[in-house]
């Protein structure tokens, strides 16, 4: 009640504030007059009575201010401070724009990158109790996190004591029959409990029933929300409709929620129950299923790992043929999903943080320069009665205005940068990183931006305040423009510049190393010529092409049709993958004539047409390529790569003529007829493993990849190739049409290296600019502070060159200091990000030298201008102006 009354009284006064002021003035004047009269009547001299009365009354400005404060609302003084701050900033547009711009840059970069970090690493996966979910793998030395075989999965599911549920999924391209012919559609095969394990329920229809994933059950499929909208117009009568996938009728039983995402599924349209076992899944040695488990309450990952390992060991004994050497691995699901990009995001966040720091340091030193210039103002305000709390608040308000403007701009820019960055991510890659889908501002990103803003504000209001408290107010009044005070400032400013240069050095070295890694990566020896190659994948219906004869015929027909296209020089075919595809399909073999104890030599396998190697322009080291006549009537042949020859045969042994056999089911002997130079089959940054190539004619397939070399533009060849294949049969699905160069550049490794190199490079360029501006500011200010000293030196006969050298030496020392400190920090930082470096050491001398030269050069450039100005001072002018 009282406080309400108080509020209204204050409000009443607020509306007649001017009257309040004038009445207070009159009242105080009356008081002083009376006092003066009293003193006069006491016989004091008129003049001295006047002053005495005034003195006795006290500082009337301050008292009026106090009275105002009594009756005013708190926000009024805040408002005054704001108005004053705005006026101050407007008076100095150069400073204001520079400061706000730098802050905006720093905040923009860190907020945008943090949003990515948040989306990928912080935000929990959108499943029930996501921390209890784990990826479960079989593990061999060549492949520490590998898929399970179906029989192993069933055993693991039955025997484990650590998971409430264990389910599997397999990425699968479905051949979708449509009235317009066959298409490929992205799909996922899942076990019946997969969605229940994640804790997801369909938004429409029902989940798979237990047992619905067996081949005895009717084939059923769930639609993704996007597929429901795009392919079925979002109609509810979709339930019960059928769709033909891989030639089999599937009944649509449900639709997944709109916001549901599972990155390993890419953007799968069709989620089919496994319908197991298929031809692969009857074998314990055919590994195709990725597993996820939900940990029981109180079970740690370690316990789960120990349990799965003991099951794996048990199976190893039970089924030595297929399970020898098969261990187990368990990892948090988050790691499985975002593992690859974690180090890159952390490096980028670090880079953005350093950029923000450099921006803050720069703004701080600008603020310091300004607070030096405002010493007199502050002293006058203090003398006129401003309390020191009020002065501090004034600085805090100015800091707040700067940070608010910079922050607002930074956040707008960050939103824009986020959109730009996500647009730059190729669609294929984005499908792999569906956790980035709802990238944007949320509570966590907001909190991050807020914390940054608070940090900046604290910095910007504390530093000038601290500076002011160092120098007495009286000093500020007495001191004219000459600068004895410059000394302590110079020390502080110099330290800031050294820090800035060191940070810029770290960023530049980081960018340099990442750039060099990217260059090394893109110039890694591929073992073939990637230019002028067009590639596409073909999926032919099993019903028509599943048998050996028709698939061989199809392959020949495809080659001959595409060879007819204008510009095409040669055409090759490979099933089970082409370069850059990864090492997915592996086989086990032994060398005949060598002792063998049941070990599994796990090696990627490719089945290729006779023209495949010559089309790639691969290099034959020894022996021969396959012939058109290498078919099932001949002995089995194989070509191996150099890595294979090195690993399995000693240097004086000739691989040609050696014989291999598959294990555990022995086959006809396979004779090695050729050795090719290593072709980069997998990611660019991974050494090519031993690879076995077999003749396609001996291992026919109705799904394969076509590689065509053309003398013309390979991109323009692609549509013609698609048309030629559809000419053969409209029911053949064509997908993944892409040139080899694009395949390389958009491969995950290349892309991640590419983006990190460019982003860190961008940060480094800005950092270089900011540190140069910072150095310029400090040297220029120091010159302006020392104008008098330099003028006297010149007047006493110092050569302009000497003055020039004096200034340059000062700047040079700062630069050298910064570079030296930066060098140490940079090597340390580079060591931390070694996992992102390829073919380059963290202390790469050429990069470090180049960066030091660039930074030193720009530092010299930045100090050249003020140094010139100092040297060309006219001593007469300088001394006269004092």
């Amino acid at each position, binding site marked *: 009640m009282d406080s309400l*009354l*108080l509020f209204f*009284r*204050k409000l009443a006064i607020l509306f007649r504030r001017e009257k309040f002021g004038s*009445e*207070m003035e*009159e*009242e*105080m004047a*009356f*008081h002083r007059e*009376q*006092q003066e009269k009293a003193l006069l009547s006491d016989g004091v001299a008129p003049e001295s009575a006047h002053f005495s009365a005034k003195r*006795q*009354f*006290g*500082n*009337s400005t301050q*008292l*009026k201010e*106090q*009275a105002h*404060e*009594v*009756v005013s609302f708190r926000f009024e003084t805040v408002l005054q401070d704001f108005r004053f701050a705005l006026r101050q900033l407007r008076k100095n547009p150069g400073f204001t724009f520079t400061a706000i711009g730098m802050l905006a840059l720093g905040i923009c970069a860190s907020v945008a990158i943090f949003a990515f970090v948040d989306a990928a690493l912080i935000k929990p996966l959108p499943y029930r109790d996501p921390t209890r979910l784990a990826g479960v793998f079989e593990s061999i030395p060549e492949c520490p996190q590998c898929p399970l075989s179906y029989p192993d999965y069933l055993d693991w599911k039955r025997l484990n004591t650590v998971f409430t549920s264990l389910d599997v999924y397999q990425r699968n391209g479905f051949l979708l029959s449509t009235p317009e012919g066959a298409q490929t559609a992205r799909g996922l095969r899942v076990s019946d409990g997969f969605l229940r394990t994640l804790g997801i329920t369909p938004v429409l229809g029902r989940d798979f029933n237990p047992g619905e994933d067996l081949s005895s059950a009717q084939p059923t499929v769930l639609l993704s929300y996007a597929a429901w909208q795009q392919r079925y117009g979002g109609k509810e009568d979709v339930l019960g409709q059928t769709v033909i996938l891989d030639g089999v009728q599937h009944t649509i039983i449900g639709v997944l929620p709109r916001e549901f995402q599972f990155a390993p599924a890419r953007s799968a349209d069709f989620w089919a129950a496994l319908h197991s076992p298929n031809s692969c899944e009857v074998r314990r040695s055919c590994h195709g299923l990725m597993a996820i488990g939900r940990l029981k309450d109180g079970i740690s990952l370690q316990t789960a790992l120990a349990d799965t390992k003991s099951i794996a060991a048990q199976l190893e004994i039970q089924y030595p043929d297929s399970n020898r050497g098969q261990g187990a691995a368990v990892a948090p699901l988050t790691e499985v999903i975002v593992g690859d990009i974690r180090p890159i995001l952390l490096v980028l966040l670090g880079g953005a943080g350093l950029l923000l720091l450099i921006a803050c340091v720069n703004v701080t030193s600008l603020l310091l320069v300004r607070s030096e210039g405002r010493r007199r103002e502050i002293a006058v305000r203090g003398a006129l009665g401003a309390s020191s709390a009020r002065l501090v608040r004034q600085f805090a308000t100015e800091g707040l205005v700067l940070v608010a403007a910079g922050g607002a701009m930074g956040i707008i820019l960050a939103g824009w940068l986020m959109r730009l960055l996500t647009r730059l991510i190729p669609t294929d890659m984005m499908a792999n990183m569906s956790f980035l889908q709802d990238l944007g501002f949320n509570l966590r990103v907001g909190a991050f931006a807020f914390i940054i803003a608070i940090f900046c504000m604290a910095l910007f209001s504390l530093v000038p305040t601290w500076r002011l408290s160092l120098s007495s107010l009286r000093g500020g009044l007495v001191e004219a423009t000459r600068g004895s005070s410059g000394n302590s400032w110079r020390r502080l400013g110099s330290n800031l510049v050294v820090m800035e240069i060191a940070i810029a050095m770290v960023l530049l070295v980081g960018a340099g190393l990442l750039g060099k890694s990217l260059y090394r990566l893109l110039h890694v020896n591929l073992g073939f010529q990637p230019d002028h190659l067009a590639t596409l994948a073909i999926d032919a219906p099993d019903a028509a092409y599943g048998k050996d004869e028709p698939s061989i015929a199809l392959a020949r027909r495809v080659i001959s049709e595409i060879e007819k296209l204008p510009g095409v020089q040669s055409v090759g075919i490979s099933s089970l993958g082409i370069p850059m595809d990864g090492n997915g399909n592996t086989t086990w073999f032994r060398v005949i004539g060598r002792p063998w104890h049941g070990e599994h030599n796990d090696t990627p396998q490719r089945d290729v047409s006779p023209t495949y190697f010559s089309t790639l322009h691969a290099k034959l080291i020894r022996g021969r390529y396959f012939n058109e006549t290498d078919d099932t009537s001949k002995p089995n042949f194989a070509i191996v790569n150099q890595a294979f020859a090195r690993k399995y045969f000693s240097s004086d042994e000739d691989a040609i003529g050696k014989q291999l056999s598959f294990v555990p089911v022995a086959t006809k002997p396979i004779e090695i007829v050729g050795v090719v130079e290593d072709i980069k089959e997998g990611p660019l940054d991974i050494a090519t493993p031993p690879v076995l190539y077999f003749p396609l004619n001996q291992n026919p397939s109705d799904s394969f990849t076509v590689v065509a070399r053309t003398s013309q533009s390979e991109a323009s060849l692609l549509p013609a190739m698609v048309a030629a294949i559809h000419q053969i049969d409209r029911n053949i699905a064509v997908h993944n049409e892409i040139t080899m160069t694009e395949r390389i550049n958009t491969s995950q490794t290349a892309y991640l290296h590419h983006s990190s190199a460019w982003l860190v490079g961008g940060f480094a360029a800005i950092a270089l600019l900011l540190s140069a501006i910072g150095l310029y500011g400090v040297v220029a200010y120091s010159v302006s502070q020392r104008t008098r000293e330099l003028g006297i030196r010149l007047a006493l006969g110092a050569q302009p060159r000497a003055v020039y050298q004096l200034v340059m030496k000062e700047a040079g020392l700062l630069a050298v200091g910064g570079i030296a400190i930066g060098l140490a920090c940079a090597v340390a930082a580079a060591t931390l990000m070694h996992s992102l470096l390829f073919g380059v050491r963290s202390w790469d001398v050429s990069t470090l030298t180049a960066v030091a030269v660039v930074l030193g050069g720009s530092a010299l450039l930045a100090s050249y201008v003020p140094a010139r100005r100092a040297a060309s001072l006219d001593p007469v002018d300088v001394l006269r102006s004092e």
Partner: protein
Amino acid sequence: MPKKADLLPGTLDMLILRTLKRAPQHGYGIALSIKHLSDDVLTVEEGSLYPALQRLLLRGWVKAEWKKTETNRRARFYTLTPAGRKQLGAELSQFEQMIAAIGRVLQDA
């Protein structure tokens, strides 16, 4: 010149209220009264009366009115309100309690 005693913190409001209890006064009058009544021991930094008076006005403990003085000058006169009278009573008894307490402590020592 004898050293003048500083006011105990928080007592200025009470002194003003006490002075006004006797008769309405303008600011200068209040300052004079305090000085005289305390035999020149208590001096208010005269100007600081005015922020204090505003505080009392805001609380509703005093009322202000522009009137003519004997010398026919315009001045703002402050009058104690019933609420102010009550407040004065409360402050006085609190103050006496405190003085008594301090006195006991000092005697004991």
